């Protein structure tokens, strides 16, 4: 059996993302990376929690934040997490078309989220003159939320690249781990967002 045949079995194994040694290695290494990302975001959260009362003026969290938009963004990201679960469900059933479709829906929701975030930042800048250098709170806020937005952008580019690159290849044991890991990354983005909407927006409104 040639290398190609090994990667394209007639029937997908139960866990196509972990069927090859490369897949197993990617799986472990990626979780290691996510552990590191947790610490990275913790340092940004720690900074934010320590500095969010240093507002240097009336642009306080309570004054700035509007919960309607944040609620909408939360729903978009949470739903996109479910749609990527659907994509992985179809991957395990070896249905490449459906997996691509659900990934496309995930990407659209992610783009909508990103659009809302850009609108939010622009709104703060133009309506409140609340910029990166306005106060310690402003720097900590833009760094934390912007870093998360950067992750969303990276995740979107990652998924889109995978979709385009593998469009004609179909699903096999070579790219299944790639898709699986990209979906893990997407879920992790939602994990971080749960803490952002809780710590930054909701706790900011409670005061």
């Amino acid at each position, binding site marked *: 059996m040639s290398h190609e045949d090994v990667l394209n079995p007639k029937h997908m194994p139960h866990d196509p993302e972990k069927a090859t040694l490369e897949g197993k290695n990617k799986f472990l290494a990626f979780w290691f990376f*996510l552990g590191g990302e947790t610490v990275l975001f913790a340092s940004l*959260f720690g900074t934010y929690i320590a500095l969010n009362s240093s507002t240097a003026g009336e642009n306080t969290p309570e004054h700035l934040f509007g919960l309607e938009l944040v609620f909408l963004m939360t729903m978009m990201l*949470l739903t996109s997490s479910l749609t990527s679960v659907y994509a992985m*469900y179809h991957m395990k059933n070896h249905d490449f078309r459906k997996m691509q479709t659900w990934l496309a829906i995930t990407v659209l929701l992610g783009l909508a989220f990103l659009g809302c975030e850009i609108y939010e930042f622009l709104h703060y800048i133009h309506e409140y003159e609340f910029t990166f250098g306005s106060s310690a709170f402003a720097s900590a806020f833009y760094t934390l939320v912007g870093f998360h937005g950067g992750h969303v952008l990276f995740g979107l580019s990652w998924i889109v690249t995978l979709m385009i690159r593998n469009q004609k290849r179909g699903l096999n044991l070579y790219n299944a781990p790639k898709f699986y890991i990209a979906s893990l990354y997407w879920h992790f983005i939602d994990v971080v967002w749960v803490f952002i909407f809780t710590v930054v927006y909701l706790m900011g409104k409670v005061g």
Partner: protein
Amino acid sequence: MANSSHSKPTRQMEYEKKQHKEEMKQQVITFVLMILFTFVAFGMVIMEVNSYFVIPTLIILAIVQVAFQLYYFMHMKNKGHNMPALMMYGGAAVAGLTIITFSSIIWW
């Protein structure tokens, strides 16, 4: 399993498909619960529930929601996830320490 790489018995395939469907059902339930938690969290803040318990409750809701995300959506409840659990709990422990350190450095 000598023939596992060529052809899997259809019964095995059917069984796996059913298993995947069962897992998907659990994940949809998880999603509904997560939406529910989000509604409760936002509802408490929008309706200005005035109590010492608001912030602890918000944090607990967030932690439960993240646990759902990790264990169901990211499959940490499945077999073969001991290392991922070690990584994530290790990460979470250092994360907690980092937050305590940063806040105490500035406010002590």
